[in-house]
């Protein structure tokens, strides 16, 4: 299989060979399937961001190999060999609008493709397509990106990444600071790219409701290691373990644990509000579980 991402015993040491050496990744092995929607969760400092930065080789491993769509990255891979790889892996950082710099929306989005050698005409074509993809109105193309709202600026930044036609899109906390409406827009955009463009989406997040609502796979990081990899229901099945990892349950699960503590005998940890409502109705109509 060359259509996937795999990590084989990858270790990344920050400040190697100094007294401050610290393993941010510690012998990580994992596989991410093509066209999956994978969420990466873990408390601050668990290695999430370090992990994803290896996928487009922004960081190189200290030991171990990574394979991305048939391309190998090892500690000795030179930057020259990475350019093609980076074209396939789009990376949207936290607060990506901070990286906008051009005088117009269209120029900002064209920057990426041009950087990879596209002609002005081709870059513009990709940029126009990317604008449409992220739902930016064509009338905005000649405006300064800095006159746009926060949510729109973020979409310009994402369009800049999409204009390079990546197969894999890495989103690092893409909705931080957005209001509920903007939040939903960006997450629905990610889902659309996954469902209709067959992109592989990798989402770094600490919003467990998004994990449940959008992801099919979840990787849990703790102290530089992958401690669990499974579906959302497998990951959240054991609330005690989730808390031990300094993570939260989705809102419905959180509320369910409070109901249980108050004496409402729910049996399972619900992942969504619909699950939770079903369970409550079941208790009301079904068996009389509580003693009078």
């Amino acid at each position: 299989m060359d259509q996937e991402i795999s990590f084989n015993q990858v270790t990344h040491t920050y400040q190697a060979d100094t007294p401050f050496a610290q393993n941010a990744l510690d012998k990580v092995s994992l596989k991410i399937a093509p066209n999956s929607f994978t969420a990466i969760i873990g408390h601050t400092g668990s290695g999430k961001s370090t992990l994803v930065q290896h996928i487009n080789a922004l960081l190189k491993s200290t030991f171990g190999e990574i394979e991305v769509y048939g391309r190998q990255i090892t500690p000795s891979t030179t930057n020259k060999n990475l350019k093609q790889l980076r074209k396939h892996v789009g990376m949207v950082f936290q607060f990506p609008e901070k990286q906008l710099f051009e005088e117009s929306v269209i120029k900002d989005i064209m920057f990426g493709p041009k950087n990879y050698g596209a002609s002005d005409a081709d870059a513009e074509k990709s940029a126009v397509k990317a604008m449409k993809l992220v739902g930016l109105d064509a009338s905005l193309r000649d405006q300064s990106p800095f006159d746009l709202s926060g949510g729109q600026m973020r979409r310009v930044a994402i369009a800049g990444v999409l204009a390079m036609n990546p197969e894999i899109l890495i989103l690092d906390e893409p909705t931080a600071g957005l209001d509920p409406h903007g939040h939903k827009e960006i997450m629905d955009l990610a889902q659309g790219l996954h469902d209709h463009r067959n992109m592989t989406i990798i989402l770094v997040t600490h919003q467990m409701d998004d994990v449940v609502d959008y992801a099919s796979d979840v990787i849990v990081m703790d102290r530089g290691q992958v401690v669990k990899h499974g579906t959302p229901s497998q990951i959240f099945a054991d609330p005690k373990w989730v808390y031990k990892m300094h993570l939260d349950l989705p809102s419905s699960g959180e509320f369910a644990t409070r109901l249980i503590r108050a004496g409402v005998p729910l049996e399972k940890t619900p992942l969504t509000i619909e699950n939770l409502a079903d369970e409550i109705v079941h208790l009301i109509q079904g068996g009389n579980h509580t003693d009078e």
Partner: protein
Amino acid sequence: MKDIIQIKNISFNYPDQPILFNNLSMNVHEGEWTAIIGQNGSGKSTLARLIDGLIVLKSGQIVVDDLVVNDDNIFDIRNKIGMVFQNPEDQFVGATVEDDVAFGLENRQVPREQMHEIVEKSLKQVGMWEFRDRIPANLSGGQKQRVAIAGIVALSPKIIILDEATSMLDPRGRQDILDLVYKIKQDNHLTVISITHDIDEAAGADRVIVVNKGSIVEEDKPDNIFGDISKLKSIGLSAPFTSQLIMALKKRGIDSPYQYLNDKRLIAWIKKLVSTK
């Protein structure tokens, strides 16, 4: 109760931009926790910057603790207000946590001995004293916000304004910071204004002001504001979790006399339903 902030008929627009506030008035009651909610671009943060005199009004007047916001009073007013922003990194100046908290005091020429005392007390209040020698940039998001709050507490303001201060934190980190600010508010008899689009955070406030496109849509107690979810949705906000659950139960034939309950009351209601059936 005194109105510690009075906003009287203000108008404002950014250069070359359409009018944002047109004759807007509102008050903030002393000692209360007021949540100002609204979409991105609704003018919430601009309001905070006007109160702190960071930007200047076109017309109207803002009074903070009996002082009119103008050039003469600006320093006195800023001494009364502590602002916590979304990204504390934008505010860090000190090389260490301790230096950073001391910065505001140095600026106000507080004597050295007294300064050390205040810094220690402030960092202890936010639980960051053990981190005093650390580099602020290397702390976690929640820890950074704690340091930013210590820097504010050190200057003993009367008003704390949280401008989306918890939006970058995970749910638990968010609750920790809110609990901390609440405790500081109670201990020091402060007024808190929280600018947020987190509906569940606003649900815990004494009073909620809903802003949309530069106008006040509603101001009331959370229970009354959240009684009508359709209104919140129509301006791009979401319903509180408890309202969503009540709706989901309604769809399944469990009728509720309420559209909104706070967490505790909803739990009590569900418990009653389950045990009486």
